[in-house]
């Protein structure tokens, strides 16, 4: 992570005027820091989107990229399971009409248990790490565990063991269990990244972090910068 630090700080500096790091840049940052991210591109035209989709193969996910849209699903800015050119082109045109349009993020479909991995720079306690059941309903279910960063190796597994969603991760009703070692590793990596960026950030959402038997992948991310 140390070697990529200047590049990460540059991504943050570039996002300063928007107040937050948008998804494509946030994914680059997480990738630089050693996290798994899906194969993705930022397409500025429908043609670019189609070329990339052909390259990685359908189905793909398309998401609006706009500095004015923090919660993409709220405005219909996320389309999953796109399986054909016509649908992708049509989705692109629909997103173009949304406010602040800067392009469309096209990426491969990943499956796994949806988690949220987040950080918040708390006034009284400094950097805090949050792990929970992810998805768009996180604020309804509130199945989360919080800890002060940095996490110790012992604390990382304690976090997911404290979730109700623990059973989903351990292989609920015949499903394959998620790679819990990889999840613990992802938590520790996130914790050190958060400590490193402490002075820059207000909060981070990785939602979802998709955990399967193969990997834990940052499927969406935003970094809200400190004022």
């Amino acid at each position, binding site marked *: 992570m140390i070697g990529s630090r200047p590049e990460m700080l540059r991504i943050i500096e570039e996002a300063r005027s928007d107040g937050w790091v948008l998804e494509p840049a946030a994914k680059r940052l997480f990738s630089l820091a050693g996290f798994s991210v899906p194969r993705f591109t930022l397409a500025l035209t429908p043609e670019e989107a189609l070329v990339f989709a052909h390259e990685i193969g359908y189905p793909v996910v398309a998401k609006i990229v706009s500095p004015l849209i923090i919660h993409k699903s709220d405005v219909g800015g996320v389309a999953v399971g796109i399986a054909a050119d016509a649908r992708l082109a049509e989705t692109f045109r629909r997103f173009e009409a949304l406010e602040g349009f800067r392009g469309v993020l096209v990426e491969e479909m990943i499956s796994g248990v949806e988690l949220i991995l987040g950080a*918040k720079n708390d006034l009284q*306690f400094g950097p805090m790490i949050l792990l*929970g059941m992810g998805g768009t309903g*996180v604020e309804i279910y509130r199945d989360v565990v919080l800890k002060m960063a940095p996490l110790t190796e012992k604390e990382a597994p304690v976090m997911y063991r404290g979730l109700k969603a623990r059973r989903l991760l351990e292989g609920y009703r015949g499903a394959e269990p998620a790679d819990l070692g990889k999840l613990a590793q992802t938590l520790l990596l996130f914790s050190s990244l958060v400590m490193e960026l402490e002075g820059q950030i207000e909060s*981070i959402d990785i939602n979802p972090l998709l955990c399967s038997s193969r990997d834990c992948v940052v499927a969406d991310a935003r970094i809200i910068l400190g004022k």
Partner: protein
Amino acid sequence: MDLKPLFEPQSMAVFGVSASNYRHPANEIFNKNLLRYPVRVYGINPRGGTINGQPIYRSIAEVPERIDLAVIAVRADFVPEVMTACIGAKVRSAAVISGGFTEVGRQDLQDRIVAIAKEASFPFVGPNCLGIYVPSLVDTFFLPGERMVKPAVGNVSFVSQSGGILVDQIIKFTGEGVGFAKAVSIGNKAMLGETDILDYLTADPATKVIAFYIEGFGEKEGREFVLKAGKCGKPVVVIKSGKSPEGGKAVSSHTASLAGDYDSFSAALSQHGIVEAANELELVSFCESLSKYAKPIEGRVGIVTVSGGHGAMAVDACTSRGIAIPPLPEDVREELRKYLSPSVQDIAALTNPIDLTGSGIDEDFVATARIFCSREDIDCVLALLLPYVPGVTSDLGAKLSSVARPCGMPLIAYVPNVEKYAMLIEGFELNGAPVSPSIEGAVLMVEALRRKRP
């Protein structure tokens, strides 16, 4: 900074005493310390005069000995001047009782006294506080002594941002027979905050349990506090107010919304083994229990009672907190049955909870406690007592404790708290076993031992 002069002063100066206005708070502080405490106390007022037959000194410079603790209860605007004079006279510490600082928007005035004190490494609590209370030693509370309860000397120390909460809890703890080592109201905590006091109490041999009432921390102050409290080696119990999220605060990320101020507070505490009390009942129960027993348990309780209903309520309270009630195996039940008195033998329920029925007598409790002590899968005895049952006597506390203590098993009792049963209650408490006035409270006492990290 040495806080010993603040908490254990030999000599004390009270600023602001009045020869004419007998109701002045400083007069109350002066009088109670003069009449009831060993500390040597001097009243100070530029106008001079006498108070309670003692001369009022016109300035700190005139006082004939070096002062450990200055109690400053003058108008806020005069505090910087008084503090400077104290530092000039080599006074060792101060409690600034006066209000009129940040709480009324006078950040400037508060900054001034902090700057003065910091430059001279002069420790003070407050402003806008009640100061220090150490049973049998010193009391800077301006409350008339005859209106206060008299807390016993004990081993719980209490640090409170609010003076009102502190006094109220002193009264309530005293009602439950919990004694104090030190109590301090830190008010605006301009110089000395929770973490500084924690450092002092960690090293204080008289303090076994440290309790805090906290409204909030300054920037990163919470982090420093939990890191220190987690390592201090003594149980730390915290009760927090201001838990509700601020309305209308715009939150842009899910994490910021899910990790609100209080969520973070609570998580950081539990991460570092600090016990959070959700309410007053938890606070007093946790403190009492932790002040009696130092060794942590896993929480596998043997329950003995003379009422099936009490047993059932205790089981519910235990189960909801994850405390186990291991059943006694058949052979152990038969062994226990042999030791029980004839009138109980055939009717007692012996699975755990053990219901000795209304015919139970002291010796049946003792026999049951002996069996609990012999069990590897039980690590705590919970006795639910109904003093109106004919066979229960006021000697039971001493008898049960003489069984539980040698086998190293914490004994916790429930007895209804009415004056009539005081002898039974004291029988437990004088033998080192905590007593709660509610079943829920008694289970909380078990819970406290389970949550404590060594």
